[in-house]
């Protein structure tokens, strides 16, 4: 399994664990404004990130020389996804309890990073989705 895939999958597993731990805190009502973070750690940090990692590994080869397309793009996608999600996890609860310009603009940046992560993944994988 390539390093990029292992990195995606292991980070996904960490998001999964964090999400379920956050689920306990939400159930115990000791946190405020964390519900969207909980959902997105699950659907984006865990499911989507796991899919990205496995797809880069298992989809039909891009070419014999470059089986996984442009791997640098894959690393960019990884970095953007996780930095975007991390910024969201920090700024969104602050913004929903004590809104301020710093947390506000952090959310804007986080939104752009996460969108770009998806865009790069699709750009790099599109051609690999084809009939053999």
């Amino acid at each position, binding site marked *: 399994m390539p390093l990029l895939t292992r990195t995606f999958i292991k980070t996904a597993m960490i998001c999964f664990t964090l999400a379920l731990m956050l689920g306990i805190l939400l159930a115990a009502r000791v946190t405020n404004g964390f519900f969207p973070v909980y959902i997105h750690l699950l*659907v984006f940090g865990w499911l989507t990130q796991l*899919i990205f990692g496995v797809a880069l590994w298992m989809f039909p080869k891009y070419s014999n020389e470059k089986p996984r397309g442009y791997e640098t793009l894959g690393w960019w996608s990884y970095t953007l996804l996780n930095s975007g999600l991390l910024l969201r996890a920090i700024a969104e609860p602050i913004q929903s309890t004590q809104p301020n310009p710093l947390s*506000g603009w952090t959310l*804007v940046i986080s*939104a752009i990073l*996460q969108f770009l992560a998806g865009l790069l993944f699709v750009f790099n994988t599109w051609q690999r989705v084809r*009939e053999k």
Partner: protein
Amino acid sequence: MPRLSVWFVRASFIHLLLGLFFGALILAQKGISFYPPIWNLFPLHVEFLLTGWLIQLAMGVAFWIIPRFSNGSPHGPVGLVWFSFAFLNAGILTTALQLWFPHALIIGRIAEVCAAILFVIGSWRRVKPQGVL
């Protein structure tokens, strides 16, 4: 990858991009208010990403990966699963019309259920032990 899986997976990529785009707009709006009605995109964000991306990708990959038949059509009744693909995507796009026609949500959801039933019927016999032809 069979042609139908290519369609499922590429359609799921398009839904991923649209759904992420809507989510990004809403998240940015939560940060710095620029156009509050952008929240109208919220149901589309959820529908496109849960059904259009996650579920559709799983269907496409399942159609590709689960066991094939050695006799007859290797992927079973492919026509049914093509209909499932059409119903699923028509259903998702119909739910997007709920912004203008509230009934579109239920009509789209019914189409999605038809897609699920067709997919299940079309794949049922492929979920089989090794050695069954």
